[in-house]
């Protein structure tokens, strides 16, 4: 992922605009990506320090009509993201340091003007005990420093694909400085929406979703503290949400950003058609939910867990995106499940309003005790219930409640 300082953007009044990705610029990016990828591939087996030096050398020699260091650094960063380095053997290096430095401390204390501390002799003695040379011992002392890690593999994106996705990568970095994002999305495939909404939940953003008359949704994204103080507190999450937004057939975003050293408030707009990116893959279930599903499936209850339920939309009232649906084997009864977790009381009240407005599907909401809401708020609803959990979501408690909901007359 790019960082904000690697983005080439210009101010136009109150707007922030990326430098247009015309064919010439794309060709330059592709050429740079190809050169850097080649260098990275050739450096497999070298240390991180050697790779850095080789990339810098490659950058210095980049044959560009007008050298643009920021563009070069940005492409370099995206290529670097494809590199995997070895895990250093920190234990061995730390043990060697401990031994050598303790011996050195004792030797220095015992030294005298007539027999001064002798570094070389100390390393030679340690090397003899190991059957190696002093140079090897010395090199091993800091063998776990990041600069010494070896490049194991390079799996960067093909240069043409990197160039095609470069503008999106820059937009993502701009969103690191965003305080608020409004996205308009449209897709023919319900699965794309599900993936998008699941990503937003996974990132713990608070989306306010409105269905648009012409089709699609308008999504306003921020976090709970934005009410309290505008800031780029959720910039990373907003940036990470972009690939999922850009996975829709048509999309546009409008973001309030704080840009430059003076963090000047500017408006940023970008949009386009579906962009396939590796990062747009649907996230797996959050840990707390994955653990619950495993426990639930162990109950052998006669209920199946559907991990990809539909988005529930009540026109005019709002929508919700369940995490799961439970399907009863004997009669096909279906109960949706949404985890509201530890996040926001506001989200709970929005769901309660949605149920009261007539959401027809059966649904169980789960909220943490920390949100200080009572299960009684949905006691009278025949289609929905609230389960308040203390530390973990208890599979049996959920089973009891979905059985009751499934059997309740509506």
């Amino acid at each position, binding site marked *: 992922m790019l960082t904000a300082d690697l983005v080439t953007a210009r101010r136009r009044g109150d707007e922030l605009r990326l430098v247009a990705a015309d064919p010439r610029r794309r060709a330059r990016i592709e050429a740079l990506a190809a050169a850097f990828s080649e260098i990275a591939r050739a450096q497999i087996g070298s240390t991180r320090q050697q790779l850095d030096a080789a990339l810098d050398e490659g950058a210095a020699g980049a044959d560009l009509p007008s*050298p643009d*260091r*920021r563009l070069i650094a940005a492409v370099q960063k995206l290529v670097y993201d494809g590199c995997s380095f070895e895990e250093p053997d*920190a234990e061995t290096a*730390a043990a060697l*340091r*401990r031994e*050598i*430095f*303790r011996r*050195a*401390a004792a030797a*220095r*204390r015992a*030294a005298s003007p007539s027999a*001064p*501390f002798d*570094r070389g002799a*100390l390393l030679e003695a340690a090397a003899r005990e190991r059957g190696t040379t002093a140079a090897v011992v*010395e090199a091993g*002392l*800091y063998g776990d*420093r*990041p600069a010494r890690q070896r490049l194991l593999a390079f799996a960067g994106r093909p240069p043409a694909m990197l160039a095609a996705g470069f503008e999106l990568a820059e937009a993502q970095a701009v969103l690191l400085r965003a305080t608020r994002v409004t996205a308009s999305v449209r897709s023919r495939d319900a699965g794309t929406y599900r993936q998008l909404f699941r990503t937003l939940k996974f990132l713990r953003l608070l989306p306010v979703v409105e269905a648009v008359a012409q089709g699609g949704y308008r999504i306003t994204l921020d*976090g*709970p*503290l934005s009410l*309290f*103080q505008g*800031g780029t*507190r959720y910039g990373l999450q907003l940036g990470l949400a972009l690939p999922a937004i850009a996975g829709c057939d048509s999309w546009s975003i409008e973001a309030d950003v704080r840009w430059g*050293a003076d963090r000047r408030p500017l408006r940023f707009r970008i949009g386009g058609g579906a962009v396939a990116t590796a990062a747009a893959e649907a996230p797996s279930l959050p840990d707390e939910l994955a653990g619950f599903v495993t426990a639930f499936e162990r109950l052998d209850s006669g209920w199946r867990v559907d991990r990809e339920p539909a988005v529930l939309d009540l026109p005019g009232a709002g929508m919700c995106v369940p995490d799961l649906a439970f399907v009863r084997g004997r009669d096909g009864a279906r109960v949706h499940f949404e985890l509201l977790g*530890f996040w926001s009381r506001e989200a709970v009240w929005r769901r309660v309003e949605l149920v009261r407005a007539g959401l027809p599907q059966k649904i169980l909401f789960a909220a943490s005790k*920390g949100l*200080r809401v009572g299960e009684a708020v949905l006691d009278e609803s025949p289609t929905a219930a609230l389960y308040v959990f203390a530390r973990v979501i208890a599979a049996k408690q959920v089973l009891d409640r979905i059985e009751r909901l499934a059997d309740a007359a509506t």
Partner: protein
Amino acid sequence: MRRAFGRADDAVDDRARGYGELALGARVVREPRPYQAEALAAWQAQQGRGVVVLPTGAGKTWVACLAIDAKRRSTLVVAPTLDLVRQWYDVLRTTFGVPVGVIGGGEYDVRSLTVSTYDSAHLHMEHLGDRFGLVVFDECHHLPGPAYALAARACVAPFRLGLTATPERADGRHADLDELVGPIVYRKDIVDLSHAGGYLAPYDTVRLTVELGPDDRRAHDEARGIYRDFVARNGIRMSSPSGWSDFVIRAARSEDGRRAMAAYRRQRDIAFAAPAKLDYVGLLLDRHRGDRTLLFTQDNATAYEISRRFLVPIITHETRVRERSEIIAGLADGGYGAIVTSKVLNEGVDIPDAAIAIVVSGSASVREHVQRLGRVLRAREGKRALLYELVTAQTTETFTSARRRDHSAYR
């Protein structure tokens, strides 16, 4: 809010408050030193909101324990590093004899006494803002940044205590501490507690100027010439507040500028790690072979060079927590005689009773320099601490050194 509405005496149904009172107070009771008792009284007189300024080694932690014991509200202690979080965890657990929660470093365990890093407090305060009645901001000069300030703004705690040795910030934002924590309610500096009180060890500071060899001098002056020439040609006033950022921005725009930036770094590196300096480090380590010594550098490269050359353990941001603890314990048990570090040990972390500090290189920051001196001032019978500052002659270091010594502790 009650104050803001001018109706402090009205009965209020406070539904925001989610914190409780501590069932038990401190189980370890130690007579506070007079200045600690004065600091607590001054803080109490300010309705339990304010900043206490005491030098390193003067026992700020104990002032906080006294404040927690006095208020007996659920308390969050916020500290800048994981080392400090661990230190606070040990102190609170021993002092209050109850399980202590930790937020940060991969842990999330909230209890009525909890310690957090600034990073984690900033991340989680929106969920935890109602849970604590007292928040202690250790090294509170970190708080007034735009991100960390949220940790103070998003919590409802009526009682707030800031602790620091040096509240002033170069960006002037220390004024925000008034709103975030409260005013400075008590202040004593190194000189007050060392010369008069005897609560800190007496000390001497020795400034040693070393000369560059002819080759290094030539390389230094040549690099400095390139850098100065660029600055002059572009009309950049390095002494102005925006001088450095002007230079960085202009340097990034042209090949000429990039060469000037490289030259700037080269002359600085030569000054930081002048061969004569490192030779002198060897002499000092030999001279003080029976003492515990801390060596400070401005950059990691010099710290690693000293570690490699003199075979002394090194602590940098790359050092894993377990190894860092082992090194500090090794200095305490005598297994090690010296530690070299760049900036990691500048503040807070309790170092065993070291007597010698060697500042091989540093920034112009008065705070950093005072903190480094503070590392060796823990009082002990018969101890006299010594701080050496190595400065390379006729380089920017002479100017940098003069600026960082602009404090009563060095007069």
